[in-house]
């Protein structure tokens, strides 16, 4: 294989840090895997924000709920069919997202509440859903005697794992990459080729113009929530096939990564969100492994890298288009061409 040849050539270079092929290849597979996962987690966030203008903290619940739909199906009914888990997660989580909109976000916006109020209400919902899930899990654990608070990785049936030369692609990798590809193609077709997609884009660009498409704005927003919540829920299902162990904190522990990915995309551009996913996945995985191996940086600094990326993003390229921006320059240049 070509990469392996290149790697051997690299190892011949004197005085370069040495990374073995085993480590490098499995690390690369992991980076690709995480990139796909972050895309599936973060793209619905961008999608929902740019259409509805709600900074949605509940997004982390979406992921966790998706994961727990799969876990409960597996633990209580022995389900090992990933498609069934995905369909259920899409329906349930998407339904929750629509419910949130109908019960909370829509009445608030109708009353003319500021974006801050919407954000804070989503924070309240986040807390509510998090502990609702804990309660459900406690009940399920109590009656089934299965420990749902910390659940092992689910091995789904029918999905093969592939070995390419020395590189092993797990069944989770296959499922994740297929899902990510399907999502990207699906979103592209939806946004570019369908009437609904055009309406969704119109709502985000110009709420007044959007009425022209013939689809009522309310419907567009509800459908957006359904799709955003549903995809995040599917992401949660994929997570259960990958993570070493799943807890009800899964989504919350990733919220900073997912939002950072979204922020890199300015919460408006899906393409840039994809780039952000690759960037964060690379920084987290390549970054900490290489820093650890060559500079003895403790692995416990890993979250540091993500936060530094986030704060750098905010300083270097603040997402002004989405969050509103103050036209103020700390280092102004008066009469610069003089």
């Amino acid at each position, binding site marked *: 294989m070509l990469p392996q040849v290149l790697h051997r050539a690299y190892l011949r270079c004197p005085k370069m840090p040495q990374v073995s092929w085993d480590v490098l290849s499995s690390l690369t597979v992991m980076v690709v895997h995480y990139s796909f996962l972050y895309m599936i987690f973060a793209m619905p966030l961008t999608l929902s924000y740019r259409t509805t203008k709600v900074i949605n903290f509940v997004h982390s619940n979406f992921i966790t709920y998706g994961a727990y739909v799969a876990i409960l199906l597996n633990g209580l009914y022995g389900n090992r069919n990933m498609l069934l888990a995905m369909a259920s997660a899409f329906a349930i989580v998407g339904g929750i997202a629509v419910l949130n909109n109908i019960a909370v976000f829509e009445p608030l916006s109708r009353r003319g509440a500021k974006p801050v109020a919407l954000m804070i209400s989503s924070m309240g919902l986040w807390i509510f859903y998090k502990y609702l899930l804990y309660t459900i899990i406690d009940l399920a654990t109590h009656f089934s005697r299965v420990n749902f608070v910390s659940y092992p990785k689910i091995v789904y049936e029918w999905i093969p794992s592939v070995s390419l030369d020395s590189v092993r692609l797990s069944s989770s990798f296959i499922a994740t990459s297929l899902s990510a590809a399907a999502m990207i193609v699906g979103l592209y077709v939806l946004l570019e080729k369908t009437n609904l997609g055009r309406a969704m884009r119109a709502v985000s660009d110009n709420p007044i113009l959007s009425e022209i498409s013939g689809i009522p704005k309310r419907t567009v927003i509800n459908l957006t929530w359904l799709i955003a919540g549903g995809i995040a829920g599917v992401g949660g299902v994929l997570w259960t096939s990958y993570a070493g162990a799943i807890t009800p904190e899964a989504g919350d522990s990733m919220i900073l990564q997912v939002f950072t990915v979204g922020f890199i995309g300015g919460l408006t551009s899906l393409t840039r969100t994809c780039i952000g996913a690759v960037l964060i996945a690379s920084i987290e995985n390549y970054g900490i492994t290489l820093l650890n191996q060559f500079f003895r940086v403790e692995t416990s600094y890993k979250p540091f890298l993500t936060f530094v990326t986030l704060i750098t993003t905010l300083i270097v390229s603040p997402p002004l288009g989405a969050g509103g921006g103050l036209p103020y320059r700390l280092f102004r240049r008066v*009469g610069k061409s003089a």
Partner: protein
Amino acid sequence: MPNILEARDLAKYFGGVRALDGVTISVPERSIVGLIGPNGSGKTTLFNVVTGFYEPTRGEVLLKNNSGSMERIDGLNPNEVFLKGVVRTFQVPRLFTSLTVLENVLVTPPVQIGEKVLDAPFKSRWEKQERELAKKAVGLLKKFGMEKYVYSRITELSVAHIKLLETIRGLMTSAKLYLLDEPAAGVDYGVARELFNYIRGLREEGLTFLIVEHRLDVLMDYVDYVYVLHNGKLLSEGKPSEVVNDPKVIEAYIGG
């Protein structure tokens, strides 16, 4: 009359989009100058560059300072531009919705003792100034017939009053130049004329106005000079009567 504001070869690019591409205008003191053009012709961008929202890509903006000489102001921040004596209003009025009309006017004066954190808790230090400012504010509101609304919230006002209030705020300072972004948008013809009458009255008192306006029917009766922008470039300029008959302008409006 000497110029109070000059923009020389002003340009602003957003990536590949040339929102403003080498515009030169000058605004004489104590005049009302109109700035017109089709949608997306760069009028608001010009305002944004002059008031410090953007740094220009090229060119310079000069403002007459108190000693009478021209001074570069491009690149200053909006708050600094304001302190130099330039007041700006917005197409969609931006008033402080949780404050009363009186407070909206009172918030304007730049040097307030009571806004300093070390003085604010001690009423005695700022009470005198506050009372003086209140006197001035009530006086202004009375002058423009808004004494009935002193304690009202902004949400209780009519569109015309809101537009008027945005202008009145500036009078609390020693501002010399007003940049008004579509003052007559959203109000009916009679009210629009009334607004412009006020503006003309203020001009008599020594103020200068640069006005972006779509309602040419109203604008043309009041302005001394008009600039026409199209695709970020100056298309035409001159007295109102000259400009409306300029075939280029007519074509741009119909074509745009």
